[in-house]
């Protein structure tokens, strides 16, 4: 699996997961590990700086909350983030459709 492909869509992935429910970094990393096959595995080292980047851009926001007797930084999607997610989803589906068409045509020609 090309890691660059995953890197390019990592924001979409994080926003999609956080749009479902607000989560702290560790919970998010566990969710990624449990839901994604090995070859699509998202580097957790990349996860935290990416969360900060998204917060910096106003797409997500964070609050410190006490969960299981621990003070956790919980991330959630902002209104701007939801709009960003819709736009990214649209881009993704267009990209996916185009690639599918091209790849299928190439397969038929062979």
């Amino acid at each position, binding site marked *: 699996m090309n890691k660059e492909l995953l890197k390019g869509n990592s924001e979409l992935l994080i926003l999609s997961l956080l749009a479902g429910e607000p989560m702290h*970094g*560790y919970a998010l990393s566990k969710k990624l*590990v449990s839901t994604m096959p090995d070859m699509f595995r998202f580097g957790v*080292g990349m996860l935290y700086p990416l969360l*900060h*980047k998204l917060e*910096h851009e106003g797409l997500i926001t964070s*609050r410190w909350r006490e969960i299981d007797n621990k003070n956790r*930084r919980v991330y959630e999607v902002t209104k701007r983030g939801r709009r960003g997610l819709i736009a990214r989803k649209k881009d993704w589906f267009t990209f996916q459709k185009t690639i599918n068409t091209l790849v299928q045509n190439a397969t038929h020609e062979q």
Partner: protein
Amino acid sequence: MSSKDFLERFEQALLVGGTLRKEIITEICQHTEEIEVGKSQALDLGDPEKLAQKYNHTHLGFFHTTWRLILPPGLLYEGLLLFMLVPYILGFGSMNNNMSSSASNTGGADWFWPFMAIIAILGLSLALVYCRALSKLYHLRDYILVTLVIVITLGTLTFGGLAVVSSSNLLVAFMGAFLGTIPQATFIGLFLTVGALFYRRIEQKSSSRRRSIG
């Protein structure tokens, strides 16, 4: 690598300071603790230096390395130098005159005031951006010291050069350069220090608000 080693290396490479630093370290510390409890290899954080660099890049932007941090005071001072030199180069002033009189010597040149305005806006914008970057650094006082040293060195060199050209007496030239540089370097240093502390205060306030909401 043990989580203690990981955190040590991570903290060393992390340039981000203030409350933001505490928050980042708390978050990473919690993650490493969870890994140790769960013994899950899949949640490994990877290389601590690379992780710290990513944080530096996210929060410090252009100023995420030390050498880039040293660049702006130099540029700022060069901007000021340009502001004084250009009128001379274009022949509107005399090198034997006092340097501060250069602006008045430019007479009615059409380009002069727009040029000065552009330089002033650029200089101020650069200074504000730099203040913000400084405010996010871990060793704030160290970097302010670096800033002052650079500003004074550059100022002494450039004004020294100018004074040597404009005066036949070397001793007078160097004394003039030295005395001329100190107030300007002090002004820039103080401006950057106050600006950085101001931005840090804002950051602390927004961070405590975030905690109290939670």
